[in-house]
């Protein structure tokens, strides 16, 4: 089952395309990281999947074919939007009660126990909680709905490093304990590198790369060799990004560990961040 599946999905705001021709299938059972620079279309994609916006073209379904925004889709997805919107004048208890009334399922005991463990007072107004506490409250509200898919849009943006760590630990616990699939976005890959096992790279409204992290790492290598030969060699390879020094050139190529390497060249495995940067750089150079 795919938790988010889109084909030709596009969204235009006035005259600019926020998302163009996005075809994507994120399988269930992953923590999927949606990574790209600001303005890449991450929020647009997640809003479309959550049913908060209608596509300009194409379509998107969630949780195995449920149209985004349909009652069945809303029932199965817990969406935590950017900046964790909440009613600032309502207490944490009221937010629990509100969310309970708005959903078919709500695990009140779990929610209260979790807030107790986190030391978030139920009587305090949501607007008076710290940034980290607000994020944890938003996450608690989402998890208590017992969703099958948890969608988090830029969850780290308003958190300090300790709160980030605690927040991600909570997400991972829910993922392991309840089998929730997770899709989360960030413009900083380093934040998600340790938790995500599925990566979607976006820039300028398009998906640049998508796949399981292990597969992506296994299918890319960095080749290092004499700069003079680089151009000729590159013609025979699928080069993602080339970096040339005085003497040596580094080519990030699509190839597996079994592929032969030309004499005089060395192959190295690639790191996730290096891979992501290469794809994002390539994109900016092409369009420049």
């Amino acid at each position, binding site marked *: 089952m795919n938790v988010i599946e889109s084909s030709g999905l596009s969204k235009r705001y006035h005259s600019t395309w926020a998302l163009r021709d996005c075809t994507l299938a994120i399988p269930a059972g992953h923590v999927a990281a949606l990574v790209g620079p600001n303005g890449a279309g991450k929020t647009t994609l997640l809003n479309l999947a959550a049913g908060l916006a209608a596509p300009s073209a194409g379509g998107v379904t969630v949780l195995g074919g449920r149209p985004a925004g349909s009652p069945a889709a809303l*029932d199965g997805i817990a969406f935590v939007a950017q900046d964790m919107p909440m009613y600032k004048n309502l207490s944490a208890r009221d937010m629990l009660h509100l969310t309970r009334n708005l959903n078919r399922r709500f695990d009140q005991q779990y929610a209260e126990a979790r807030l107790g463990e986190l030391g978030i007072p139920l009587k305090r107004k949501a607007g008076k909680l710290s940034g980290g506490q607000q994020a944890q409250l938003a996450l608690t509200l989402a998890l208590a709905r017992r969703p099958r898919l948890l969608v988090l849009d830029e969850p780290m943006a308003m958190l300090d490093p300790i709160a980030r760590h605690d927040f991600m630990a909570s997400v991972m616990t829910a993922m392991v304990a309840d089998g929730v699939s997770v899709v989360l976005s960030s413009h900083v890959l380093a934040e998600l590198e340790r938790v995500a096992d599925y990566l979607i790279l976006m820039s300028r409204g398009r998906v640049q790369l998508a796949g399981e992290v292990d597969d992506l790492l296994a299918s890319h290598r960095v080749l290092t060799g004499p700069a003079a030969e680089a151009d000729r060699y590159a013609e025979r390879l699928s080069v993602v990004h080339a970096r040339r020094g005085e003497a040596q050139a580094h080519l990030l190529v699509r190839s597996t560990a079994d592929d032969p390497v030309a004499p005089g060249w060395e192959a190295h495995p690639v790191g996730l961040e290096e891979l992501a940067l290469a794809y994002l750089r390539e994109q900016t150079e092409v369009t420049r």
Partner: protein
Amino acid sequence: MTALTVIARAEDDTSLRPVPWQRMGWVTWRQHRATLAWVVVFLGALAVGLLLTGHQLHQAYVTAVAACRPPANSLTCPNATIAFDGANGFLANGGILQATPVLIGAFAGAPLLARELETGTFRYAWTQGFGPWRWTLAKLVPLAVVLATAAGVFSLVLDWYYQPYFVAANQNMGLEELTPFYPALFGLRGIGFAAWTLVAFAIGALAGMLIRRVVPAIAATIVAYAALAFAAGGWLRPHYLPPAVTSSLNIPGSAWVQSQWWTKNGTFAFSGWPPESLFAKYCPAGPPGPVGPNGKPKQVGLAQCLTPHGYTQWTSFQPASRFWPFQWIEGGWLLVLSALLIAMTVWLVRRRAT
């Protein structure tokens, strides 16, 4: 951290039953009880003011009737009349009552969606299992009903307050007698006040959805409401029913005169004020009879010099007995308009136009 309660998860939940409507009851109450409290306090304060000044007004009326009922006591009647006319306090004439429906509508209706959209909380509210358009409908309809009911109850006080001005015998006693269609009061009496409050709320909700910002949405609501109120009073209301036409010169003070014209020998001569030449020819002695409030002679006086020369005065008017039919017609179309505006708001939410 493990779940303390294990919840059975229906795997085949594509045909799931929606969250019951009544669950929104608590949500709407919790989020709008402060607004409702303000409305109750505001209307309550106005009602107390009206009851106090209304008491004086009714007292003054009773005194004036006692003094001016024929045969009038010529000494006390003028003073009692002045006291009665002066008893109509600032509340009654002031714009505050005219503006009350739109104030309630704008401040309760416009922020309802605009605040969600402005602060981003719609991303929370519209991604819950209840669903965005059902959420909108479940907020708008009960609030509209409650606000219209509160306005309806309040307008009972208004009806009572203005009663002395609409007594049919007033004119004969020289006291002020208003037509029940008196423009400034028609929308405050009967079901008008509740209907106008309802439509103001519906305009506010739609403006909030379209404009997405609280303060501009409130401003737009007030402007749109004012335009609608002026259009209704000026253009629509006179045409709810075809006016009655009479050649009688004795039009009751309760009638709503719409136009007057003259015929000679069965053909149209002129409407309104006679041409200067005609006036000079048949009424050379100057304006005969008593002078009306607009500085022109009353039509009765004019008729005295024109009727002998074959002229007939015609008057089209709405008789006072049509007050309630007019109230129901106006209340009816305002109710339909409100329903349409609310439906459009819900449709916009459903379409999720961004």
